[in-house]
């Protein structure tokens, strides 16, 4: 056990319970750093729970119990990391944790059942979990808050079983079990009346899939008809690469802005918009730099760290928070330094992989497992390969089209919609660019847009001589495919096709069936 990467048998830390046996010893410097960050997380949680209204919310909302697992979630994402990677990860995740804590605090402040601050609530625009918040970049006095993010999305990251109750609720209400469990769980929360109620209005989006789109109907029924919160459905075009849909998309943005102005009394502020646009551009430049590094032999910002951070920064923040730009700068500085020193990320790199498809949400740290167990480097993933287009920083007319473009190219949606080329053909282009020999293809079984290309993926991979490893799962529901079953799909391929032995054999089979 010690300072060097790969010096700890990580599997030995697992127990059959909810948490691991002990913290990982990473040498004095890294362990001390990691411990101070753990204290910071505990500080964020303490600051949050000290408020009486947040304690009240803790007992009102079933999903709040998952937040007890927050420190463990951060620990899961640091497994085996040392030096710059550990610091990059903490820079990303600690900020995300802080952002989620603030989001919860704001939600409960305005929630009619908890804080019931009516004046505050009037400044809130509810947004979907899977929605670009670009349309809020020009409203400095308003807050775009997503109820689904803390109730469902983050909850599953914290506790693998978090969504199961709500999935069951939706199915008991009559929803078939074959739909995507994410909108299914969100609909379940709404059916269970377990969403906080606040806001002057809401903006829903025809997000990633038919399931998401339809699940929104369930949510808006309660919002509009019972809670009296007007909803705007932002229907972004599906074939987003086509020129003849862009004017329609831009008009949807104009209509959405007018709707928000009408229901909040706020006025669109171009200065604030362009400030946000500059931040988005800077974040994009940083992300592009990280990806460029990942094309070399010394990748630095990769795996689940890249995925989760990009998702938060690109979609939910979208230029509205300077803290994320500061974090981007820090990450780039750390990565550049590590790159210059040719810092290795793992003990042994055996394969360079592109991770494609929709990742299993209850096992986000799987990408770290790939690195640590088998030496497979997840260079980038589908959800991180989002728009790299620079936004106009001064042209108001172009800005409308830019917001439309961002909305159309929301994470996941930019690949699951838009025709087969963005999902299928571009994967092989990325394989070439990143010099990847392997594709880890998440097969989220209920994602119809993705599995509808199953045969094409197989045939093209064979044609191009790329190792394609299917990893089937059910996104939010570990009862269908467990974490070990996910690992076994890789284990089988590595042993039978590659005929390799694991870099860290202690990780091949883990007792984490009951863990958070």
């Amino acid at each position, binding site marked *: 056990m010690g300072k060097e990467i790969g010096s700890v048998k990580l599997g030995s830390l697992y127990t059959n319970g909810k948490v691991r046996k002990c913290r990982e010893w990473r040498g004095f410097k890294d362990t001390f750093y990691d411990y101070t960050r753990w204290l910071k997380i505990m500080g964020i949680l303490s600051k949050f729970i000290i408020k009486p209204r947040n304690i009240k919310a803790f007992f009102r909302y079933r999903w709040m119990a998952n937040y007890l697992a927050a420190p463990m979630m951060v620990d899961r994402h640091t497994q085996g990391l040392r030096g710059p990677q550990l610091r990059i990860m903490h820079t990303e995740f600690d900020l995300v944790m802080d952002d989620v804590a603030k989001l919860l605090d704001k939600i409960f402040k305005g929630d009619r059942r908890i804080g019931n601050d009516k004046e505050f609530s009037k400044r809130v625009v509810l947004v979907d979990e899977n929605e670009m918040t670009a349309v809020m970049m020009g409203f400095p006095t308003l807050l775009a808050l997503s109820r689904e993010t803390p109730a469902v999305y983050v909850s599953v990251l914290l506790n693998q079983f978090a969504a199961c109750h709500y999935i069951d609720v*939706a199915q008991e*209400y*009559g*929803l*078939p079990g*074959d*739909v*995507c469990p994410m909108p299914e769980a969100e*609909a379940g929360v709404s059916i269970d009346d377990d969403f906080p109620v606040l806001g002057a209005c809401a903006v*829903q989006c*025809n997000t990633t*899939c*038919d*399931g998401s*789109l*339809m*699940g*929104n*109907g*369930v949510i*808006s*029924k309660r919002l*509009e*008809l019972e809670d009296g919160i007007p*909803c705007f*459905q932002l*229907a972004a*075009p*599906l*074939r987003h690469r*086509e020129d*003849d*849909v862009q*004017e*329609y998309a831009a*008009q*949807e943005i104009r*209509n959405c802005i007018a709707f928000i102005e009408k229901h909040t009394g706020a006025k669109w502020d171009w200065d604030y918009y362009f400030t946000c646009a500059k931040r988005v551009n800077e974040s994009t430049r940083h992300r592009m730099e990280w990806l460029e590094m990942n094309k070399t032999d010394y990748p630095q910002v990769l795996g689940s760290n890249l995925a989760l951070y990009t998702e938060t920064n690109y979609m939910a923040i979208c230029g509205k928070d300077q803290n994320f730009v500061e974090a981007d700068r820090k990450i780039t500085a750390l990565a550049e330094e590590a790159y210059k020193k040719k810092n290795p990320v793992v003990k042994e790199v055996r394969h360079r992989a592109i991770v494609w498809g929709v990742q299993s949400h209850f096992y986000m740290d799987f990408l770290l497992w790939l690195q640590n167990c088998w030496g497979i480097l997840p260079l980038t993933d589908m959800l991180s390969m989002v728009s790299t287009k620079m936004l106009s920083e001064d042209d108001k007319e172009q800005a409308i089209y830019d917001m439309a473009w961002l909305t159309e190219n929301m994470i996941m949606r930019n690949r*699951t*919609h838009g*025709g*087969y080329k963005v999902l299928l053909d571009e994967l092989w282009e990325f394989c070439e660019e990143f010099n990847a020999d392997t594709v880890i293809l998440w*097969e989220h*079984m*209920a994602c*119809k*847009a993705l*599995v*509808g*290309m*199953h*045969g*094409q993926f197989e045939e093209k991979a064979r044609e191009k001589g790329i190792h394609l490893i299917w990893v089937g799962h059910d996104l939010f529901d570990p009862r269908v495919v467990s974490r070990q079953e996910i690992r076994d799909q890789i284990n089988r391929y590595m042993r039978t096709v590659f005929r390799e032995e694991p870099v860290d054999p202690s990780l091949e089979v883990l007792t984490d069936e009951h863990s958070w």
Partner: protein
Amino acid sequence: MKDLKHLYYFEKLLEDANNELVRLAQEEGRKCIATVCENVPEPLLNLPGVFSTRLRAPRTGSMEMGTYYLTSFLCEYTRALLERAIEGGYNFVDAIITPDGCSMLNRCIENMELLKTFKKEHVFFEYMEIPMKADDNGLNLYVLQCKNHILTPLKEKFGIDVSDAALRKAVEEHNRICELIRALGEFRKEDNPRITGYEFHILTMATYVAPKNLLIEKLEETLEEVRNRKPDEKKKYRARVVLVGSEVDDVDVVKLIEESGAYVCADRFCYGSFPGRDPIVLKDDEDILTQICEQYMMRGQCARYMNQEKIQARRSYVNDLAKEYKADGIIYEQMKFCDPWAYERMVGSHVLREDYDYPVLSVDRPYALGISGQLRTRVQAFVESVEIKKIQGGKQNG
């Protein structure tokens, strides 16, 4: 009741996608434009020189190749279509125009394109963006998409006349079919109807899969025949139901429901007559294409329309149909793995039951029903519950 003279003829038309009338129209030199969704305005595919057919995969058996490409998680309709395409069952098609409707249909057609399943050299694929909200912006999009992905390619590739006069003629022909189907459907309102739901379904489906002008004569004859037809003295059915839901092109679905004692008095599903066989009313002083698109958009009952106003309107539309056609209950059906109708069925069946007080049967089903004992049992039980409710004077909720 005496069998309808042309029923067998219409049934035969539905046994093969490349049916007798499709072949006849192609022999006349007309191009066959295939589609797979009700959101593509039919008259635009029935301009002089072309005719439309909605793709089906009748007599589907194995779907192994379709399942390999699409996996077993996609609905059987899409898998059956792809299977049939790979088998060469759609080689007669000259072009396919499809909306990016549901993800599954979209992927199905994309696979057909990638696998080069259509053999004609000139065959082309067009994908349309269609509105998800019924508003001005959606209408502008719809019109532009119809121009760019239907009219322009038809003109450029097949030299089809897409003038206003040609559009008006296509709408007239479309309306003639709609009038005939509507007139036939009116008999379903009778207490002891002189046309069965099954017969009506067969006639309606034929109008989606065969060139319209070649059907008119036999439909007119059938209408006259039904007009003079004497129903059986003893009523055959124990309950009247509206069948609501996703794509139903399987001839056995309505048949099975009726064999189980429920008369399908109204059909609100893709391939049904509501709203697909509503005539298009054209004004002289407005752009024709815009009028067609507007009527398709405003009357559309597709579950993909996502604004709450339209969502609520879907349920009240079912209520209106049930009232008009004197239904005792509603059957909400959904093809298994269909995401849009999974949600619509779930909420719709609760709303119709709780807000509108109808007995509702909510079921999912395979694409090709065959002899489904499970569905038969459920419909029989539903009919019994409706009967009991009637006996109890509607005093108990069931």
